[in-house]
């Protein structure tokens, strides 16, 4: 019997019931992710990337197939699979510290109050947001909110960190700053990460593996490519390296030649 990977998606099919019959979003997806691996999933809008991530999070139940995490079966959402949402999803009536604290309280069993507070501040420190601990999300910029969203997720000490287009709503410069934060965190914590993105550079820069999805409906994994850049990574060094250029080339060819955006084809 073969050894199962840390996170293993086996024959995952997701169908949604619609008025005109069932809509197949994902068709028999098989994906194995090792512990400590950073995997980016890229594809055009509507290809089911988010559905795949939600299935791993437990927010969407697959119609067929099983997801294994650390040899346990995933069948409900839980704090061992922390999610960084695209819209940050901070609770506006709690301060930054309380938002992170809510997550910490659910995951830090047996820790004292002081230890929990320290852990909250430590995680805010990692994303450079300690200065805003007493502020409410409404007082923060989009980039700062997403930093807090990341702090909340990593504070849960998740077995897998799921990021659903975490920087999709940010401007290019803020996005770059947050990518640096993620690279820094990855160098320190070596989390197992599954990240959805539609940004080629983001995928290649951050991930060890870029999983490219075909266009939906019934999306599949089209190509699965390793990015052989040494860690810790640096944006400037990376863009000058041949590996980076090669991986970027491959992803762009996949997205814009082999599987062009269906809406562009229709136009």
């Amino acid at each position, binding site marked *: 019997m073969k050894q199962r990977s840390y996170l293993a998606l086996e024959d995952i099919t997701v169908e949604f019931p619609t008025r005109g019959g069932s809509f197949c979003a994902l068709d028999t997806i098989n994906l194995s992710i090792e512990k400590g691996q950073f995997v980016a999933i890229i594809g055009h809008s509507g290809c089911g990337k988010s559905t795949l991530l939600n299935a791993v*999070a*437990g*927010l969407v139940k697959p119609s067929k197939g099983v997801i294994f995490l650390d040899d346990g079966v995933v069948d*409900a*959402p*839980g*704090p061992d*699979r*922390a*999610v960084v*949402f695209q*819209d940050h*999803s901070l*609770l506006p*009536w709690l301060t930054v510290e309380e938002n992170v604290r*809510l*997550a910490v309280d*659910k995951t830090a069993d047996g820790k004292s109050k002081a230890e929990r507070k320290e852990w909250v501040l430590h995680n805010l420190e990692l994303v450079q947001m300690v200065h805003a601990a007493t502020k409410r999300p409404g007082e923060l910029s989009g980039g700062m909110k997403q930093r807090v969203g990341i702090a909340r997720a990593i504070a*849960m000490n998740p077995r897998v960190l799921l990021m659903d287009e975490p920087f999709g709503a940010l401007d290019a410069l803020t996005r770059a700053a947050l990518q640096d934060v993620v690279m820094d965190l990855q160098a320190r914590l070596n989390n197992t990460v599954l990240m959805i993105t539609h940004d080629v550079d983001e995928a290649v820069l951050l991930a060890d593996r870029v999983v490219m999805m075909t266009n939906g409906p019934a999306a599949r994994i089209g190509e699965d490519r390793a990015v052989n850049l040494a860690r810790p990574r640096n944006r400037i060094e990376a863009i000058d390296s041949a590996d980076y250029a090669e991986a970027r080339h491959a992803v762009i060819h996949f997205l814009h030649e082999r599987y062009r955006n269906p809406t562009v084809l229709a136009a």
Partner: protein
Amino acid sequence: MASPTNNAASEPSASAGGSAPAASQRGVIVPYPETAIARRFFPPIPQPTHPLMVKARAVAASALPTLVMIVGLLLLWQMLCGSPESNFPSPVKVWQESHDVIVHPFKGVEVNASGLHIQESGDVGIAGHVLTSLGRVLIGYGIAAVVGIALGILIGQSVFAFRALDPLFQVLRTVPPLAWLPLSLAVFQQAGPSAIFLIFITAIWPVILNTAVGVQTIPVAYRNVAKVLALNPYEYFTRIMLPATVPHMFTGLRIGVGMSWLAIVAAEMVQGGTGVGFFIWDSYNSSLLTDTIVALVWIGMVGFTLDRIVALAGRLIARTA
């Protein structure tokens, strides 16, 4: 450094030596006239410096239009109804004929160590009647708020409960308060409890429906956060649902308090005995139209105050939640 322009290539010394001669060759720079510079400094506008003065100014600025409007309306009213053969009393006549009601509102009301006492019957000032009514509103509205929020959360949270109860609520909420009176009297046999029931049944619908909408419209994002954090039902209720629903809840509570105040006057008018509604009915029967006008002013002010209190409570709770 190889520059493509002849200017920089042929005259390297000119550009390095100083920019003033080069500039004067291209165009003469006229100095900005001294008088014009002097004109740019405006004398400072005298500002009130004392914080109390600043505050007083702000209050005056916001209250002045209201005061002017009130005085204007009173003058207009006096001009229209001032003649002796007018059917409707003028402000001066109201002041003269209802002088006792206006000046002695707390007649028959006694506050001592054992609490507030309002004379059971006889000559009670208008404030006494208003307080009696307020007491009824407090009980009826209080019950309506608690039951309404509970039912609202129930039908907001459970699709089954919504389908079962919402049609019923939608039908019942259109029934006018007074239509409940015969039933209420038949069941409770007494004026006091039936008035309270009337308030309850009037105020509860907006509370239920607004709370339900609030619960139903909790953003999916917050629900997903709750799921990922694996909050238990109690934590979900206190940490997500209540704070997310508070604004809707208080919209319902605000509408409800206004409606309960409407209902109490109607209920007391019919039932008699005590309360501001009775006061109006009594003054009508005694042909004291001026007393009715005084009562209207009292009712308006109290209703306004109730609305503001609930709004303020909503703001405070939304901030601390």
